[in-house]
């Protein structure tokens, strides 16, 4: 588990459901997720859980 990611998602869900601008927040988060997902596809290292196995094999 990544506690920080969980906290961010909890805040996001709470904001979506209770704030007057919740629907807009949902859209913005969607765009942010798309950008982050695309970044991970191009640079897998962008994911905090990335494990550079190749480095271990070379040892």
């Amino acid at each position, binding site marked *: 588990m990544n506690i920080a990611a*969980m906290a961010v998602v909890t805040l996001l*869900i709470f904001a979506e459901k209770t704030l007057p601008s919740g*629907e807009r927040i949902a859209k913005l988060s969607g765009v942010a997720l798309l950008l982050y997902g695309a970044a991970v596809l191009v640079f897998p290292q962008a*994911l905090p859980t*990335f*494990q550079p*196995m190749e480095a271990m094999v070379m040892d």
Partner: protein
Amino acid sequence: MALILQRNIILALLIVVAAAAWTVLVWQWLGMDADMRMYSPTMGMKAPLFLAVWMIMMIAMMFPTAAPMVLTFHRVQAGKRGRGETFVSTWFFVAAYMLLWGAMGALAFAGAAGGELIATHAGMSAATAARIGGALLLMAGAYQLSPLKDLCLAKCRTPIGFILTSWRDGQWGAVRMGLEHGLFCLGCCWLLFLALFPSGS
């Protein structure tokens, strides 16, 4: 018992249970050492432990956001009680809501275990695993912009609307409403939940 007092007790209980769940998660996380934080979809857990952690996560994340709905449900039931009509305990509603999330947890475990099996058999490289995580993030982002998400969010945002259009009497009615509301909540956030797997270890 005055309605306002009941309301505060329910709200306090929801918050205390959610806070306890967060405490367990943070305490667990602090106790893990670096290589235990290594990524795997089931986090190396067997089904019962995975489900327990899933439910703790769900309580930590969903109880605060479900509170308005639970309180609205309770207000209607308290009104019935005040008029001497039959009423149903609010916990029927909460239990059904949690049951639905538990079922989703079982599905998530099946998916995670299956993914793990494929990954070990195929000898997947770290970069491929991370790209699958990226694809999951893309899916979550696209879902946030989809009409289905709009529909579920609209239902979740207006507890009064849900009470007016989907009210059912009796204990089974409360269970059904809990399941139905849980389904809309799930419709709102299931991909956000799944997107936690690649980002979380």
